[in-house]
């Protein structure tokens, strides 16, 4: 073997290292994380979520925290089917629903069944895993898009059934019976009850969901590093080659379906008990899309990525809500302008470009403000706090709204234009676009948080998928190489 060849092969082998180099900010964060001693990592990962309820006795924050853990559990289960085994399952949310309704029927006045928690939880989990297995059977021969359509149908059938099974006629019954409560759902469920402990408080569900997440995460990490996990990923990579290497692909696909469904079923029980009710709408397509956004954002196939995805998708809408104060400033302002600053810091290099653009935006803002104040005194004002004081905003809210609406389209157009523009024109246009964006944010976006969240999530996903298609913590995948 000649020396030159070793060199060439090593060059090929280092392909991943070279790709990682691209972004200094990301590289810096990963390097710092890598330098942390193991103890430090464990403290950061475990201690912060465990101690949070002790320092933050705010039910709202704990509720959001509990939701993050719940979504992370669901995303981990979905990841087994989609990320590891590579089966595009669009009926996943129905398993969550089977768990929720299963718990509801066994713990409510609907049929006056009140099973103890330690019976109903395992029972419903096993039942849901069984449903996953059953759904897997007829879909064994389906791949890709076809599997997606069939499972999507299954999900829709579930929602339809839950909505319409409040009047089920059966032979031998004089009147139809109410099985699922229809659109009104099933309410007043029993809270979870272990030994002598009845779970009412938000804190108790926070901890229960955190514990569930920890157990599910460890279980899937173990599975992933075993014969089963390798076989799942082998099926994802090349099902035919996997079969030819002696892997019983059918059995493993069914196992993946059952494991994913079981996790979703268990999560469904906890969810139902937590909100003490279930409705068909809880288990519909919007949740499915949210979960897929988490899986894609976190990086399909990456386990820690599921937690990251659940965190981002759950927490970002919350912090963009108006009315939350941090150090006397609206939290949504800090998040929005902080996010823009971070993006600019990544995009604008060398560093002086960043300062030049920011300086130009604020300076031109102040100049516009002064001119406008001189021309139309008492008709304009600035932003409400220090961050936005340099803006020029009409006092008349109707005018502000209509100008904001109009400028919104201009801003979108400018940013699209920016990506297609020769480099030397970019910075001046960027200054204009940023100024207008701040105006639109102040007059429109911050007033309509729910729409803004959707817009920003969409923009963030588009940018992420362009710059980091493997997701936040995912490994870059190669399809054909």
């Amino acid at each position, binding site marked *: 073997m000649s020396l030159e060849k070793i060199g060439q092969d090593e060059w090929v082998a280092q392909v991943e290292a070279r790709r990682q180099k691209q972004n200094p900010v990301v590289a810096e964060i990963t390097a710092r994380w890598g330098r942390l001693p193991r103890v430090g990592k464990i403290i950061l990962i475990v201690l912060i979520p465990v101690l949070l309820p002790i320092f933050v006795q705010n039910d709202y924050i704990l509720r959001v925290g509990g939701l993050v853990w719940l979504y992370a559990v669901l995303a981990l289960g979905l990841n087994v089917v989609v990320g590891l085994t590579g089966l595009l399952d669009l009926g996943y949310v129905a398993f969550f629903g089977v768990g929720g309704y299963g718990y509801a029927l066994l713990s409510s006045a609907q049929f006056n069944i009140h099973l103890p928690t330690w019976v109903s939880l395992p029972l419903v989990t096993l039942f849901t895993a069984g449903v996953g297995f059953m759904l897997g059977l007829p879909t064994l021969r389906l791949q890709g898009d076809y599997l997606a359509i069939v499972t999507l149908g299954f999900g829709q059938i579930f929602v339809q059934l839950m909505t319409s099974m409040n009047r089920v006629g059966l032979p031998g019954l004089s009147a139809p019976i109410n099985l699922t409560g229809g659109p009104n759902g099933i309410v007043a469920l029993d809270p979870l009850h272990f030994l002598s402990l009845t779970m009412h408080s938000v804190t108790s569900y926070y901890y229960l969901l955190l514990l569930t997440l920890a157990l599910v995460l460890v279980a899937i990490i173990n*599975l992933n590093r075993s*014969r089963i996990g390798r076989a799942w990923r082998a099926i994802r990579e090349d099902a*035919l080659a996997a079969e030819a290497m002696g892997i019983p692909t059918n059995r493993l696909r069914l196992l993946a379906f059952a494991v994913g469904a079981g996790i979703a079923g268990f999560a469904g029980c906890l969810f139902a008990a937590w909100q003490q009710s279930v409705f068909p709408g809880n288990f519909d397509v919007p949740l499915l899309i949210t979960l897929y956004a988490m899986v894609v954002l976190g990086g399909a196939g990456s386990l820690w990525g599921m937690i990251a995805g659940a965190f981002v998708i759950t927490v970002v809408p919350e912090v963009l809500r108006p009315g939350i104060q941090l150090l006397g400033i609206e939290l949504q302002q800090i998040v929005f302008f902080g996010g823009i600053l971070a993006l600019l810091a990544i995009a604008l290099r060398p560093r002086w470009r960043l300062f030049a653009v920011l300086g130009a935006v604020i300076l031109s803002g102040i100049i516009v403000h002064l001119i406008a104040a001189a021309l139309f005194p008492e008709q304009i004002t600035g932003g409400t706090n220090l961050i936005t004081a340099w803006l020029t905003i009409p006092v008349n809210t109707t005018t502000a709204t209509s100008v904001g609406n109009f400028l919104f389209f201009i801003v979108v157009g400018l940013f699209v234009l920016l990506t297609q523009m020769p480099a030397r024109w970019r910075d001046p246009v960027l200054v204009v676009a940023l100024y207008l964006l701040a105006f639109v944010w102040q007059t429109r976006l911050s007033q309509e948080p729910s729409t803004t969240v959707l817009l920003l999530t969409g923009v963030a996903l588009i940018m992420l998928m362009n710059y980091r298609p493997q997701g936040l913590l995912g490994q870059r995948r190669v399809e054909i190489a």
Partner: protein
Amino acid sequence: MNTMPLLELEAVSKRFGGLQAVKELSFSVAAGEIVSLIGPNGAGKTTVLNLITGLYRPDQGHIRFEGRDLSGLAVNAITVRGIARTFQSLRLFLNMSVIENVMAAAYPRTQAQFWQIVLRRPFFRQEEARIRQLAEQKLAFFGERLAGYRYDQPAYSLSYANRRRLELARAMATEPKLLLLDEPAAGMNPHETQEITHLIGDLRNRGQYTILIIEHDMQVIEGVSDRVIVLDYGEKIAEGSYREVVRNERVIEAYLGRKHGNTKSAAARA
């Protein structure tokens, strides 16, 4: 001496619509032999491999391995019986690491159950250590090429020749008795081709595998074959040692075409 062949095809036929891909094909491979299957493009060589590995079902005839009929067995069940293959157009698990590619193929030789894995019971940990060792041992067959730091590289980062080697290692990890190699030298440079020729010999001598190989490169065929079987239009047209086969008139005809109106003189010259 036990004369039962390891692999035996008896009058196997396979038709795809109007195309008779394999017709009444019979041959056998004895334990410890290296047999080459050659023929012009479209002669049905890969179809034969797909029939043996269970990807296709024969329309007629029987395929026996160690005296037992393979018909009706699933692809993975045939692998478990002891037949492993490589693919002409590499089918690695590209986004898995090198060592995982090999360990994945040890699946049928492992037993750890779901709960033993989730709870990391000692049985699972021991088995995991064992197949890790097995995988390293199979990769060691290729010397430094796939050793050490490469274990944890993703398979897609390997060079083409190393991918072919990795596919071999993966097939070996199923612990087969019979290895089916579909054009192992395709896309390799002359130096690498020479290396693979040595390697195939090594696989038999050191690895104790019986080998059935499809190949276009005549250097490889000449270098390794105990016996050569020639297919044309799905039929066996010749069988024998390399020297016998390359002089066979029907083989020359199949590869080069018939000299128009002059077959008798061609036969006389041969």
